[in-house]
């Protein structure tokens, strides 16, 4: 038997390694250094993330397939690394204050965030379904724990339990899909699947079709697309707010990275079969998410959860449009979405009182008077989410819709335009509460330096990507081009 040792090039996975090492270090420090503050652990996590970011940028432009065809090093995965790290850094920044306020400042928190990020990176870089699956599991397991991190709070436990049960359910589908594809093609390698599925694809082959469909379900769950979305509002509401932000941005980006890679890179030959399904999921996500968000007044986190479903619809539309344009629009939008969504959650963290027992819109009444800067920033994020120019959200939507139109999905683009027209109504509802209601008594509090940094980053990103989107879009296009080899 011929046993070949896999080539091991640790340099190519330096970003993942830096993060893993940092996460372990955080755990160790927490365990062995007495009286260490969560602030210093957060600082440590951020330093680790920055090192990982530097490593990512250092690898820029290199291309290789490593570890026996499990992991790819390409601009696509590196671009996503940036998105994940950004999400992680912002999440850590907005967590500091939150953890202290809710008295759940344990070091594992930061370690888990970093581990989850490693999982995403593996998902984005995986060129084998097994590698993608491992990444997905690292990500999911960390998130299950993080969602229930407020052990004393029933809501948080419920959130973790629901997420875990349904996540396990979806993982089952995902694995089954991998198994079927393996059965059909004899490989879990995306290149091999591409070759064989191209030959034997089509309606005749139940195994390929079934495998693909089940993968679609698994991804549909992870990105929270209708009809696999029902866990989203409950989980986002119950989870610690920074984790809700993390789940709705970075974690979603991780799932989308693998989604794009598997469907656009490996299964484009079957586009005729998956395109109608994706189209249906996209339309449902946009329409159902919008309708549900319209009647949501009770909890801002639920509102943001429903709105995230709508955004998934847009992203699916970009994915569906395919090609460099469509793929790039997804990448661009994910980055933009990370800024504005985390930014919005950051404001929720800032304004929510201890325990967050009231996050109804009424709580935001008259915020503009007491906290003008927070109100202005929140308005910016909400308007960006609504796609009002000249913000990142507008430009992102514009790219997605124009990619859809160029790909001939005119009806879908029209649905997208209409839902985003409607969506302004519920985003503006929050702004109205902030600017046009009498102030309620909010605890007078100075935001921590970390939170201010996060807000500033998010504002800068939202504005920068809205006003000068050109260079980032080029980058996104290069990344997708490196993946699709065009």
């Amino acid at each position: 038997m011929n046993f070949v040792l896999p080539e091991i090039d640790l340099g190519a996975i330096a970003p993942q390694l830096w993060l893993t090492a940092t996460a372990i270090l955080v755990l160790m420090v927490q365990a062995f250094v007495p009286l260490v503050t969560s602030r210093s652990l957060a600082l440590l996590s951020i330093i680790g993330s920055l090192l990982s970011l530097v490593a990512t940028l250092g690898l820029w432009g290199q291309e290789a397939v490593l570890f026996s065809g499990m992991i790819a090093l390409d601009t696509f995965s590196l671009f996503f690394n940036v998105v994940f790290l950004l999400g992680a850094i912002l999440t850590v920044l907005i967590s500091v204050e939150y953890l202290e306020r809710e008295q759940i400042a344990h070091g594992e928190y930061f370690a888990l965030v970093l581990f989850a990020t490693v999982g995403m990176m593996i998902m984005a870089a995986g060129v084998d379904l097994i590698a993608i699956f491992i990444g997905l599991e690292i990500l999911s397991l960390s998130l299950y724990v993080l969602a229930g991190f407020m052990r004393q709070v029933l809501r948080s436990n419920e959130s973790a339990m629901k997420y875990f049960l349904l996540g396990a359910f979806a993982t089952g589908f995902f694995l089954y899909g991998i198994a079927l594809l393996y059965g059909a093609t004899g490989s879990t390698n995306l290149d091999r699947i591409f070759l064989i599925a191209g030959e034997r694809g089509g309606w005749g082959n139940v195994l390929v079709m079934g495998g693909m469909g089940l993968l679609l379900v698994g991804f549909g769950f992870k990105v929270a697309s209708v009809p696999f979305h029902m866990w989203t509002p409950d989980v986002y509401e119950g989870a610690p707010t920074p984790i809700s932000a993390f789940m709705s941005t970075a974690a979603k980006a991780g799932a989308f990275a693998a989604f794009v890679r598997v469907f656009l890179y490996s299964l484009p030959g079957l586009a005729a079969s998956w395109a109608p399904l994706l189209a249906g999921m996209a339309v449902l996500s946009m329409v159902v998410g919008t309708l549900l968000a319209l009647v949501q007044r009770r909890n801002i986190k639920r509102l943001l959860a429903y709105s995230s479903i709508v955004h998934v619809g847009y992203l699916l539309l970009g994915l569906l449009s395919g090609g460099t344009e469509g793929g790039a629009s997804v990448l661009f939008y994910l980055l933009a979405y990370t800024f504005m969504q985390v930014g919005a959650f950051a404001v929720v963290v800032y304004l929510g009182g201890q325990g967050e027992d009231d996050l109804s819109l009424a709580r935001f009444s008259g915020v503009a008077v007491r906290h003008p800067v927070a109100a202005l920033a929140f308005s910016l994020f909400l308007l960006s989410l609504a796609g009002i120019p000249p913000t990142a959200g507008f430009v992102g939507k514009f790219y997605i819709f124009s990619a859809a139109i160029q790909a001939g999905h005119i009806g879908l683009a029209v649905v997208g335009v209409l839902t985003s027209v409607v969506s302004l109504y519920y985003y503006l509802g929050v702004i109205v509460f902030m600017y046009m209601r009498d102030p309620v008594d909010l605890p007078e509090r100075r935001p921590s330096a970390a939170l201010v940094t996060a807000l500033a980053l998010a504002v800068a990103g939202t504005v920068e990507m809205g006003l000068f989107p050109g260079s980032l879009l080029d980058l996104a296009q290069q990344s997708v081009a490196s993946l699709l080899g065009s």
Partner: protein
Amino acid sequence: MSPFIVALIPLLPALAVLVNGLLGFRVLKEKAHRLGVGSVALSFLLSLWVIWQVAFAGARADLVFYEWVVAGNFSVSIGFLIDPLTAVMLFVVTGVGLLVHIYSIGYMHGDPGYPRFFTYMNLFMVSMLLLVMANNYLLLFVGWEGVGLCSYLLIGYWYEKKSASDAGKKAFIVNRIGDAGFLLGVFLVFMTFGSLDFREVFPRADQAAVGVLTAITLLLFVGAVGKSAQLPLHVWLPDAMEGPTPVSALIHAATMVTAGVYMVARSHVLFSLAPVSLQVVAAVGALTAIFSASIGLVQNDIKRVMAYSTVSQLGYMFFGLGVGAYAAGIFHLMTHAFFKGLLFLGAGSVIHALAGEQDMRRMGGLRSHLPVTAPTLYVASLALAGIPPFAGFWSKDEILGAAFKEGQYLLWALGVVAAFMTAFYVFRMIYMTFYGESRVERERAHHIHESPRVMTWPLILLAALSTVGGIIPGFPPEGGLIHGFLGQVFASHGAPEAQHGLELVDYGLMGVSVAVGLAGWGLARFFYISRPEIPGALARRFSFVYRLLLNKYWVDEIYAALVVNPLLRLGRSLRNFDERVIDGAVNGVSFLTVLWGRISDLFDRFTVDGAVNGAGAVVRGGARNFRRLQTGFAQNYALAMLLGIFVIASLYLLF
């Protein structure tokens, strides 16, 4: 032309927005107007310089500041187009804007939200300037959205009043319908021409098929109908009067509501190539003109009269555009901005004097108390009624003349009747307010006072513009500066105004215009001065017609029954479903295990036995559990996922 100076025109108010927005409540407080008014004043001066350059130095510019959105071979820039059409709009927006800002210093004095008011107003100026200066549809849309947002915020400015926040909501929702149409139109432009730049799209317009152009222009016109409150989306504008009166004057009379007119005029190249759309524009305009003029005949709230009058006058503008008289439409836009802005500010002054009274049945005899407001309002009414030589006469007459010469006799007749009604209702307003016996409530009566000078000066200036605004640019206006000026934009597309002189038919039509204006005036005088018992008797005699008009043809009620209530019901049932699903708890682990077994069983059969058996089993399994879905547990979410999968699988197998 220096790009820097052009860029400063919208940037100055933008700067004021930032400063006022952040520091307004804490630092500036009742000094907030200094920045607000000062920035607009500077913008106005810069605009004058630009207008001078365009008018007398023949300057034209298409300034591109930078490429904003680049996607493939398609790009949109941030850039301004400076041409005569923009220049006229700049004059209207910054000129009337400045006067209204000055007036607001007095009107809003002492309001607790003073800095907020100026922040919104300046934000409005920025958006409106972007709208009229944009060199492409996307940037125009930026302004379009911005003015809509500000309009919404300002209508609901006095949010403690439920009617005000309801009105804001209504304006917002109705406008969204229009905006959706506009956006779709913009997308269709993009698909057809691959560009959104005016300089790219218009020269190639004739290469597109007429059907496509008709679709584009109709969609764009849907946007204009929403923004400019034309039938059947006019319902928001009268309610918008809940906002402070300066807002009504600036946004809901002089500028924002004319954005639709401007946009159609800007797109005249496309419209000219789509005769069906032009006919639609003309018909909608003329119908709106007479429809809302008739409502205006019987309204008792002074601001509502003005609101219906605005809707009606906007109808005239579209009517003009629709018959190809683009320059006349824009000319009317300008004169209307003067006299309607004045009417609103004057009405505001009356309301101010009466401490908030808006019902004309409780006014009367105010002439002697308001020595500045009364004569200036009189001038504005003459202009609106179309009595020469006041400004409104020339522009309205020109539109009607163009319609007649284009052979649109039916629409022309509608326009003439509407002109008669206009003269009647505006003088009805004058007589009910300023003449006759005082019907003011006693506790208000003793402190009636003329407004402070900061409010009356804008009235006087606007009155001057309303008097001579029609002829100063040249007499007759058709041959004058404005037309020669705008003709350069509309050249080769506009029809009748290309001929600069006056012909016999023009004098005849003018005679008709003057006659109906005087007749309306006379009738109002007869009804409300000579024989004040007649209106009541008529209302009783023709009570159905009276109620029909008083209730605005019951359009709101019809919309409520057909659209609003069904939608509310849908929303409520969706929420109920949602809440029921949500309120459950996690206790379904055991159930889930069973479900798991069932699912794997199903899927085994599914893949083994093929489609039919499996599908049947899932349906049975689904039906059995369907009732439980309503009770709401985690397993139901799993079930929902399963159903989703089932749908996907059946789609697979069916197609």
